[in-house]
C-alpha cells in the first residue's frame, strides 16, 4: 500500500501497531469504534505486505521516498541535533529576535516585547525544556491514536491532526483563553491617572501572565508553533486552523505584556507597549489576507485600524515623555487629532462590524476607552497650549500641577469624569483668555437686592446684620430643556405640553441641587436667551469648572423628574449644556456674630465652595490667566 511518496512499512512495525492498539483499547484510551477502524486498516496493510516485501529492492528506488520527508522530520531533535530552533523569550514566550544565529550564547538578548534580558543559552535551555514537554505530549497523542515508531504516513498524519491533535489543542486553548475573551475591552494606551479608575485598571490576570506566571501559555505556545505539529497540518485548511490558534496564543502574550507595562507607565513602558501593539497589528494584517469570512475580516480590519491609532498615540506619548525641553503644544495637538481621527475611524468600523457581538462589543468598548484616554491627553495639552502663550512652562511640570489641581477639586470616579474636568478647566481657561466664548449671564443687578433680602434684621435694628460681598464668581450649571404636561380642568381634565428648563448646580457632585424653571417663571426667558448668548469670562472674576459630568447631571435630572412625575408628567428632558451664572460669597455680620452665604442668580446654589474657589483662584493666579 503506497500513499504519495511513501514506502511500505515493515511487517513487524504493523504488528507492533496492532499490539499497541490492543493495549490502548484495554486501557480504555480509545473507544471500540476507533479500535475497529484502525485495526481493520492495519490488517489490510498486513495483507498487502508480501507484495511490498517482494519488492524490497524497490525500496531504494526514486519512486518510493521516505515516509517522513527529511525536510520535515517527526522528531527533529533526534535526527538533527544541530537544528536551528525558533527561540522564544523565557519569560513572556514571545518569539525572540535573533538576527545572527551564530551569536555568542552568553551575550545578552533583550526581549522586545517584555523588556527581559536573557542570554541565548538561557533561551535555548528554556526552549529545550518546552520541547521535551512537547515531545512527550506528541508521543502521547500519537500513541493514543494507535500509531508507533518515528514514521507515519501522510494520511495517518492528516487523520491524527484532525481527529486528535487539533481538537485537543483547540480545546485546551479555548478553555485557557476563555477567561480572557474580553481582552479587547481593555484600553491599549492610557495615562497613569486613569490606571486606578474602573474599567481602565489592567487585568491582574494578564499582569500575572506578563510577569512570568505563564507556564501554561508558554507550553501551549510551544505546541501550537512547533514544526512537529505543523508537519501534521497537511491540508491547507488544517494549516489555516493552526495559524489561527497560533495567532490567538501570540495575541494573548502581547496583550499580557501590554497590561504588565501599562501598570507602570513611563517612556520605557510605552516603548515596550508599542512593540507589542505593532506585533498585534502585524498578526491582524497577516490574518486579513487569508480570511474569506467577511464578518471576521471586518473584525480584523477594525483591530488593525485600532492598533494604527494606538501606535500614533504611543509615538506622541513617547516623544512628550522623552523630550527634556518643552514640547510644541500646537504640534502635539495636531498629532493627537490624527490619532483620535484614526481611533474614531476604528470606532466606526467596530460599530458597523458584522462579526459576533460577543467579540465586537468588547472591541467597541476598548476603542472607546482608547479614545477617552486620547481625549484626556488632548485636554491636558490644550490647557498647556493656553498657558504657554504668555509664559514659558515645562510640560511635565504643568502636567503635574494641572492634575494636582483637578484631583483637589473632587473625588474622580471614572475616566469620563477626569476627561470632563479637564475639558471644563480648559473651557474656563479659553473663555478667560478670549479664545472660546461660553454661554454666560453677565447680570449683577440682582446682587444688592438679594443680599439685602437675605439680611436678618431685628425689630429695633440693634442686632441687624450687615451684608458684605466677599467674592464674586461665575457659577456653572447644567441646563436641560424640559417638556412637561400642564393639567387644566377639574372634571374634564386635559393636558397641554409646556416647555421649561431644569438647572443642576454643576459644583455639587454629592448632593444634587436642582432648580426647575417652569413656563410661568419670570427667569425662564432670561435664561433661555442667555443659553444662546456666548461670551468671554471676565478675568477679574473667578470662574469655577463644572465638576459634574453630563451623565451625572442627567442622573440627577432623572431622579428629580421621577420624584415629581405625578405633578409634572414629564415627557422629555434634553440636556443643552453648561451655562455660567453670576454668584457671590456674602459675609453677614451682626453683634451676635457672623455667617457666610453663597448667593446666586438662581435660588439653588452649592454652599460648600470654599475649597473649590480657593484652589481655582490659586491655579488661575499661578498661570496668570
Amino acid at each position, binding site marked *: 500500500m503506497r500513499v504519495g511518496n511513501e514506502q511500505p512499512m515493515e511487517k513487524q512495525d504493523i504488528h507492533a501497531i496492532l499490539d499497541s492498539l490492543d493495549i490502548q483499547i484495554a*486501557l*480504555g*484510551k480509545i*473507544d471500540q469504534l476507533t479500535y475497529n477502524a484502525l485495526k481493520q486498516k492495519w490488517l489490510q496493510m498486513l495483507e498487502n505486505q508480501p507484495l511490498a516485501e517482494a519488492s524490497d529492492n524497490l525500496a531504494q528506488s526514486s519512486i518510493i521516498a521516505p515516509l517522513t520527508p527529511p525536510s520535515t522530520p517527526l522528531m527533529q531533535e533526534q535526527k538533527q541535533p544541530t537544528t536551528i530552533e525558533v527561540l522564544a523569550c523565557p519569560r513572556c514566550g514571545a518569539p525572540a529576535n535573533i538576527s545572527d544565529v551564530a551569536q555568542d550564547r552568553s551575550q545578552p538578548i533583550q526581549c522586545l516585547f517584555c523588556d527581559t534580558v536573557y542570554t541565548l543559552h538561557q533561551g535555548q535551555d528554556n526552549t529545550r525544556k518546552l520541547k521535551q514537554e512537547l515531545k512527550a505530549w506528541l508521543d502521547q497523542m500519537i500513541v493514543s491514536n494507535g500509531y508507533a515508531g518515528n514514521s507515519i504516513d501522510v494520511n495517518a498524519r492528516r487523520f491524527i491532526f484532525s481527529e486528535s491533535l487539533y481538537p485537543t489543542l483547540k*480545546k485546551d486553548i*479555548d*478553555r485557557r483563553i*476563555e477567561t480572557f*475573551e474580553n481582552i479587547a475591552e481593555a484600553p491599549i494606551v492610557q495615562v497613569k491617572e486613569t490606571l486606578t479608575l474602573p474599567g481602565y485598571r489592567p487585568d491582574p490576570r494578564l499582569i500575572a501572565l506578563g510577569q512570568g506566571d505563564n507556564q501554561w501559555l508558554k507550553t501551549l505556545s510551544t505546541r501550537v508553533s512547533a514544526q512537529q505539529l505543523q508537519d501534521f497540518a497537511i491540508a491547507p485548511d488544517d494549516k489555516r486552523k493552526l495559524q489561527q490558534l497560533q495567532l490567538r496564543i501570540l495575541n494573548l502574550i502581547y496583550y499580557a505584556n501590554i497590561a504588565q507595562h501599562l501598570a507602570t507607565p513611563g517612556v520605557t513602558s510605552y516603548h515596550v507597549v508599542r512593540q507589542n501593539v505593532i506585533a498585534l497589528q502585524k498578526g491582524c494584517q497577516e490574518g486579513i489576507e487569508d480570511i474569506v469570512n467577511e464578518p471576521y475580516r471586518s473584525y480584523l480590519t477594525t483591530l488593525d485600524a485600532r492598533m494604527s491609532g494606538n501606535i500614533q498615540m504611543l509615538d506622541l506619548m513617547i516623544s512628550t515623555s522623552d523630550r527634556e525641553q518643552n514640547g510644541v503644544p500646537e504640534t502635539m495637538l495636531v498629532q493627537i487629532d490624527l490619532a483620535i481621527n484614526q481611533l474614531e475611524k476604528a470606532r466606526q468600523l467596530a*460599530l458597523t462590524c458584522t462579526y459576533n*457581538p*460577543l467579540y465586537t*462589543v468588547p472591541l467597541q468598548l476598548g476603542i472607546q476607552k482608547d479614545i477617552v484616554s486620547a481625549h484626556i491627553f488632548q485636554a491636558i495639552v490644550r490647557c498647556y497650549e493656553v498657558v504657554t502663550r504668555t509664559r514659558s512652562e515645562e510640560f511635565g511640570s504643568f502636567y503635574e500641577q494641572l492634575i494636582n489641581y483637578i484631583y483637589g477639586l473632587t473625588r474622580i470616579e471614572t475616566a469620563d469624569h477626569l476627561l470632563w474636568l479637564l475639558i471644563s478647566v480648559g473651557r474656563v481657561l479659553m473663555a478667560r483668555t478670549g479664545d472660546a466664548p461660553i454661554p454666560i449671564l453677565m447680570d449683577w443687578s440682582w446682587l444688592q437686592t438679594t443680599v439685602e433680602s437675605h439680611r436678618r434684621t431685628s425689630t429695633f435694628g440693634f442686632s441687624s446684620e450687615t451684608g458684605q460681598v466677599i467674592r464674586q464668581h461665575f457659577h456653572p450649571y447644567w441646563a436641560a430643556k424640559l*417638556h412637561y*404636561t400642564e*393639567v387644566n380642568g377639574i*372634571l*374634564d*381634565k*386635559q*393636558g*397641554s*405640553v409646556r416647555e421649561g428648563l431644569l438647572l443642576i448646580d454643576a459644583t455639587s457632585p454629592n448632593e444634587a441641587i436642582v432648580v426647575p424653571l417652569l413656563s410661568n417663571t419670570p427667569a425662564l426667558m432670561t435664561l433661555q436667551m442667555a443659553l444662546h448668548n456666548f461670551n468671554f469670562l471676565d478675568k477679574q472674576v473667578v470662574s469655577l469648572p463644572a465638576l459634574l459630568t453630563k451623565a451625572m447631571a442627567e442622573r440627577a435630572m432623572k431622579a428629580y423628574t421621577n420624584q415629581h412625575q405625578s405633578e409634572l*408628567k414629564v*415627557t*422629555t428632558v434634553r440636556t443643552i449644556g453648561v451655562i455660567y451664572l453670576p454668584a457671590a460669597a456674602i459675609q453677614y455680620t451682626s453683634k451676635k456674630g457672623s455667617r457666610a452665604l453663597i448667593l446666586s442668580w438662581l435660588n439653588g446654589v452649592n454652599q460648600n465652595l470654599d475649597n473649590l474657589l480657593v484652589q481655582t483662584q490659586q491655579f488661575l493666579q499661578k498661570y496668570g490667566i
Partner: protein
Amino acid sequence: MSGIFDKVRHTTGLGLNENELYERAFTRGVLLHDFKKAADIFQDAARKFSESGNQAMAAQASANSMLYHYLATGQTNNLSALIQTLRGLQQIESIGLPGEMMPVEPLCAELDCRMVEAIIAQALDDVVRLRDLHKLASAKFQAIIPHSLITYAYIRSGDGHHENTEERYFYHHGMYQFYEAMIRKDSDPSAAAADLSLAMQSFRRCNDQSWLQKVTTLLENWRISRTCWICHREMQGFELHFSMCRANVTPYTQHLLEVLHQDNSTVNLASTQIAVCNPCGSMVTFKAAEEADKVRQELTAKLEHAYTLIKNLESRVRQLERRTPLVK
C-alpha cells in the same frame, strides 16, 4: 352660543370631527399618561378619518390606537397588525410627545422582536422551539444594536434586561446557547460544554447573575471526564453521563489504580465514591429494580396466601363464636 356648544362638545367628546378627536387623544389621554383612553380615542379618530376618505391619517390614528393599547395593556395579539400598519407610514409621533415625530422603522424592528419574545413566553418546555426562538430573537436584536429601546420603558421585559438593545441581544444569545447545549448534551457533551461557555460569556455581558451562576456550574460539571469503574470507558459530563456512586473503597483500591497506571480520579477515598457512567449505573439500577420487583412479587404472593389463610381462620373463629352461646 357656538362657544358654549364647542365647549360642551370638547368636554363630552361628542360630535367632534376626526382632527379634534385625534388631538383629544393626546390632550385627554397621552399627556395625562392614560394610554388606554388615548387608544380608544385614536380608534374613534381612525374610523372618522376613514369615513372622510383620509386614509393616511386613518392609518396613523389606527397605528397610534394599537400602539397605545399595547403600551397600556401589554397584550401582544395586535402586534402583527400594528407592525403592518406602521410599515405603511413614514413616521409617527414619539411616544408621549404629540409634537415630535420619529421614523417608524426602528419601532417596527423592536415590535418585531417583541413578537418573537411573546411567542417565547408561550413555548414553555419545548427546548428545540425555545432554542430556535431565542436564536431568532438574538438575530433580530443584533440587527438593531445601535438603536435605543423604545417600548421597554413602558412595558418591561420579564427577564430584567431592558436598558439597551445590546443587553437584550446578549440575554437571548445566552438563552439560545443554553438551549443548544441542552439539545446537544446527550450526543456530544464537548460541544454542549462549548455552547455553555458561549452562554456564560453572553450572560456575563448582560450581567444576568442568576443564569450566569447556573450555566457556570453546569459548565464546570460537564467538562469533567472520568473513567467508569465498571466499563473502563472515559465519560465526559458529571451528573450528565457519569455520576459518583457510593462504594466501599480503600487505600488499596487507589494503590491498585496507580500500579496499573489507570485513571485514579475514578475513585474518591474521602467521600468513598467511585465514578460510574450512566449506562452502567442505570443498568445496575434497573437490574436492582427488576430483582426487587421479583422479590416483591414473591412476597406479595406469600402475603396474599397468608392473608387468605387469616381470612379463613377469622371466618371460622366467627362461626365458632356464633355457636358458643348455644353451647353455653
